[in-house]
């Protein structure tokens, strides 16, 4: 892929083999567009954190190339890293410092002159302003998580990595974080989040990538993906149980529930003529009376599970 003006992050042919011989990434290619929210999904050990760690400079790549905003992460690491904010998965903070000093520290590390107004804004937006002078060790887990986000935003990054941002976070805070991420997107910040929670990707992302065993198995617009891979199911609730599906309806590959009271028809939502009318007519013709029908569309979770199982 040739990086364009709209490419914020470009990963090409990236591989990583750890010292013990474990291959964490296999020839990963990925382009992230400026200003999008990209969700990277994958099971534990799939290589999500390794990928982020290489981009952010925490892990050395074995081979391949990464550019951030057009800057090579090795040759031009200052310019590349200056654009990045990283919120790690683990709650790693200096216990004895105060939030306001910790956030100012990060800003300094990233080579930015002190800006108390910006730090106040960041702390307020994460509801940490009241706790700014408390020792970090007295903060709750959720507050520490927010503090890590505040630190990552302290130097006004253009691309933000959130590694499992809502793991072990309560519902309210999760909603707050989603709102924050949307606000950042409005300001033109590119956001890359890794998550186990499919609903989070479904809720937040513009595009979704799935990584499994170190390989990117899929990158797709979320809507497209759900559309393309989405299966629909029609469930027919029968008046009286039947022993078996009439042979005349064999073409529909219907599934009969063990109790014989419901029939399930799985069809592709993409198809123009899924044959629902014909199926229902066929049921009538076979003398099978039904009292209700309902349809369901498979969620991203189902899609994900089917991809990762392959």
């Amino acid at each position, binding site marked *: 892929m040739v990086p364009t003006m709209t490419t914020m992050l470009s990963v090409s042919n990236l591989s990583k083999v*750890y*010292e013990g011989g474990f291959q964490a990434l296999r020839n990963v290619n990925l382009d992230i567009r400026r200003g999008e929210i990209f969700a990277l999904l994958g099971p534990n050990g799939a290589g999500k954190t390794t990928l982020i760690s290489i981009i*952010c*400079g*925490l*892990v*050395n790549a074995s081979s391949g190339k990464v550019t951030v905003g057009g800057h090579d992460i090795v040759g031009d*690491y*200052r*310019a*590349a*890293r*200056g654009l*990045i904010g*990283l919120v*790690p998965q*683990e709650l*790693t*903070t*200096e*216990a*004895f*410092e105060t939030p306001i*000093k910790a956030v*100012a*520290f*990060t*800003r*300094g*590390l*990233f*080579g*930015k*002159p002190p800006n108390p107004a910006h730090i106040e804004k960041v702390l307020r937006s994460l509801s940490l302003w009241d706790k700014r002078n408390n020792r970090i060790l007295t903060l709750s887990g959720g507050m520490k998580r927010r503090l890590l986000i505040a*630190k990552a935003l302290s130097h006004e990054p253009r691309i933000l990595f959130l590694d499992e941002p809502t793991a072990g976070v309560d519902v309210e805070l999760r909603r707050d974080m989603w709102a924050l991420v949307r606000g950042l997107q409005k300001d033109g910040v590119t956001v890359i989040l890794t998550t186990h929670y499919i609903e989070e990707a479904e809720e937040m992302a513009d595009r979704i990538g799935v990584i499994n065993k170190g390989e990117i198995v899929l990158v797709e617009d979320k809507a497209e993906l759900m559309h393309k891979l989405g299966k629909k199911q029609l469930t027919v609730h029968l008046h009286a149980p039947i022993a078996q599906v009439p042979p005349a309806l064999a073409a529909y590959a219907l599934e009969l529930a063990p109790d014989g009271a419901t029939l399930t028809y799985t069809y592709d939502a993409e198809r123009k003529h899924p044959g629902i009318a014909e199926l229902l007519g066929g049921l009538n013709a076979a003398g099978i009376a039904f009292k209700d029908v309902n349809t369901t569309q498979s969620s991203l979770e189902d899609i994900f599970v089917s991809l990762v199982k392959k």
Partner: protein
Amino acid sequence: MNLYAIRAIYRFEMARAWRTLTQSIISPVLSTSLYFVVFGAAIGSRIPEVEGVSYGSFIVPGLMMLALLTQSIANASFGIFFPRFTGAIYEVLSAPVSYLEIVVAYVGAAATKSLVLGVIILITASLFVPLRIEHPLWMVLFLLLTTVTFSLLGFIIGIWADNFEKLQLVPMLVVTPLTFLGGTFYSISMLPPFWQTVTLFNPVVYLVSGFRWSFFGIADVEPALSLGMTLLFLGVCVAIVAWIFRTGYRLKP
């Protein structure tokens, strides 16, 4: 040059010293004062002068060195080990900071703390015993070189150690014996000839001897040799630190 980053790390480290004032200043000053009381006043009064210097005064440079070496190593090793231990090091490694800047900040802070400590010990010592400094510029030079060199050594130990035990290992088992056997409390000319030769393999001998020469003009080895050995040791530490960063040893998998 990312000066804001150097300043951020430096200030953070200095703030840590203030938070742990007892450990970083009070405790070493107290233990050094105890040495003065025991060796200088109690036992020292029964020991004859060493090359024209009273025993109490004679041990001042050695005691300062003892404190500088141990504190430089302790400060610098803990400063880099602790963020590695908690994981907070990710921030420094992912920042647009060069390795040189990281070393300058951490080692600079550790060396500053040791220098402050050295001056406090010197002032404390002057309350107990008469002191003179014949070569003040050389004294400052040895002071600077020693604190920087041993802060670098501490930095290396802090990166190498992967648990708290290893962090204590080198200071306890290597540095303390070498310092005690390095002429801190005696002139090596007091030793039998065989042990005088053995002692010359101890790098601390050169530090203590050179430092003592800057005070009283008396030395076990040539001051130029002392300076040369100190610079050599500094060079070795710099080379190891450069290797650590080039390979990412214990920092970047």
